């Protein structure tokens, strides 16, 4: 039997998202080839904030929810190799509200997660770098800006 807390909460999240979500964002459960829906894996797209290096990009993000959701946060991933100081090489986003020992609370919604990650794009947390690209951010800003812009282009909205 399927269902339970995680699935029930995700159904609520889905309902809330359909009712109201930030402009330009996409978030929906994965649909398999046979037409079935995987409610515990959501494919999302984040628009880059206007007026930033990220403007014009639609950045793909996946949320993977466990059976322990919402007690535990989902795993939030960009594509592997995503260029950002707080994104690990495999794509995992390092953000305090996604850390069960720090800021995660079961009441945090999918919308709040996505808005939080969008905010992180242009405001990396330098206290908690996840990879080497933070050095560019600190010491070689032109290089950092250039790489981000290239990446934004690659993920440009249609």
């Amino acid at each position, binding site marked *: 039997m399927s269902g*339970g807390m995680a699935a029930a909460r995700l159904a609520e999240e889905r309902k809330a998202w359909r009712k109201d979500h930030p402009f330009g964002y996409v978030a929906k459960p994965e649909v398999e080839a046979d037409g079935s*829906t995987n409610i515990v894996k959501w494919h999302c797209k984040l628009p880059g904030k206007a007026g930033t290096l990220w403007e014009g990009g639609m950045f793909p993000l996946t949320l993977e929810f466990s059976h322990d959701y919402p007690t535990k946060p989902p795993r939030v991933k960009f594509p592997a*190799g995503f260029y950002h100081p707080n994104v690990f090489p495999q794509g995992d986003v390092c953000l305090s509200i996604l850390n069960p020992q720090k800021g995660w609370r079961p009441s945090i919604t999918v919308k709040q997660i996505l808005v939080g990650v969008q905010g992180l794009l242009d405001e990396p947390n330098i206290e908690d770098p996840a990879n080497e690209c933070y050095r560019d951010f600190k010491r070689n800003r032109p290089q950092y800006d250039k790489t981000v812009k290239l990446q934004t282009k690659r993920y440009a909205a249609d």
Partner: protein
Amino acid sequence: MGRDKTLSSGTAPPDTLHTAGSSQDVLAWPWAATGEELKQRVQDVKVLAVGAGGIGCELLKTLVMSGFKHIEVVDLDTIETSNLNRQFLFRKRHVGKSKALVAAEAVKQMRPDIDITAYQGNVNESRFDVDFFRRFDCVLNGLDNLEARRHINRLCLAAEVPLVESGTAGYLGQVSVHIKGRTECFECQPKPTSKTFPVCTLRNTPDKPIHCVVWAKEMLFPLLFGAPEASDLHEAPPAGSGIDAAAVTRNIADDPSCYQRAEGESSTHFAERMFRHLYCTKINELRNMEDLWRSRRPPQALDLDALRMPAYGDGGDQPAAIEAGVPATASSACKELGLSDAHSVWNDQQNAAVFLRAVALFLDGRSHELGSAQFDKDDLLAVELVTAAANLRATCFGISRQSLFETKGMAGNIIHAIATTNAIVSGLIVVEAMKLLARSFASCQTSFLQVSGSKRLVSRMSAPEPSAACMVCSTAQARLVLNANKMSLQQLVDKVLKGRLALIAPSLWCGTFSYEEGEGLEEDEITRNRKLLLLPLAQLPGGGVVHNSILHVDDQEQCFKAQLIITHREDWDDEQHPEGFYLGGDLPPALTEPSVEAAISETASPNEDVVSLTSDDDGVAAEAAARPVAKRKAIEGNTDSSKRPRT
């Protein structure tokens, strides 16, 4: 211990107590336990024991010795040697056999007159469906994992069978009672989950031994010997990820093949290269991210040459086998190195030696496992490697090191089981089961077995009421009878959801099938949903909506939520049931049609089910009453129309 003691100890209660304040269904506990009625009931009822392991063995014994005669038991596992110290129904000759079958045989020998059925199987299997659970007077859990507990909780709610739930961890134990609508369900309160650690802490800033152990077990081990893609240390971007090369080379500092053995590279050389990479190169890389270390102690790289074996051999017993060139056939690096005490904490040299040797042994002796090896707490070489690798990392980060025994416990999430705890808990389970059978619901309790100083004690509290916010048990349930091979999704939506339940924009989900209507859908989603409408329920994606499926129903436009438990009837006759379905359950009585109710009894469905399902539920009635007037009218209107004969 014997059933006489359990059932008739204590003095007989005065008659006044028997009747005073007790209506038919509530008999004051513990007096009820001494009555003849309960004694008879214990012998007549049928109980299901889920799990025949640590708690299960004790429970089955206590059940039969307390007079229970009709028992069924389910367990998937087979008996292992490590079970024998506490799962006392099993003997060495049973190793490898089904726990459920052997346990059933063993208690049958204690009481040959009992009727016990054993199933070797997973409770998730479809044969253990709602109808299976309905056959029992109560369900007694002796499980070891959360997923199965949640599953049983939901089945018991759907089948309306009371559940006694239990768990033990070392000296701690707990027993709780779950009766739909009366006490909280297993999922009303969030459960403490096994601790997980954020990737950032594990990769960059560990500060506890467990962080190093998890790193070694879940990141390093799969990277070296298992499926590297599964490791969070794996740094290769997926093929075809087309981010520009500059970014890739800067972000991904490593050559992805760095963790693979080079052509012709000796296992010893590979082990040393890994050591230098993990404990020198990578540590220095981290150290160079100076922002990480503003308020933390920066990690120190290890120098392999300073940790070479010559420093370690002072004890004089460095075996010759360590010399390069000796074929690695041994299964333990510690054995070769003479580190036989699992409780001692190795120094850095010893850790380095174990790391190098264990990596080499794995490559040489177990090459067939490479690429698919998985960490197993009973795999000595794997535990040795994880212990050494975690300790070396701990040294880098200034964290205390652990013995092999401690590391094994942490890596395997081992809490050593205590037979007495299991015995006490199973006794408490049977006490609560008897309260249920005595219909003494008000006296049902949640019990905690605790350790306080040197004392162990049982503390108890009344079973809490259901949580109104619980997403599992606060949802109204109804039974929907139909022919799942004939009825299409379109018909379900139109006739049942919109026609009968007056939904406006229904959302449905059932396992991995979902269907949505209303605002906020994209074109492709609308198209996908439309396609689904044509399918018969049984052919919907994700296994179909079939017999015993639980269909979750919501409405995008209204406040409505319900679970429909599907009963499939192949012989459902369209002429007799022109609507094509029967809906019965805890929905407002106005919705139930007597004529259809009569019809359902004809189709061999046990009528009591329907009666008990419709019995009462103030919550749903209140919810319906609170709906907007217009919606109420819609419901009534539809009810009226559905009463009109169709031609």
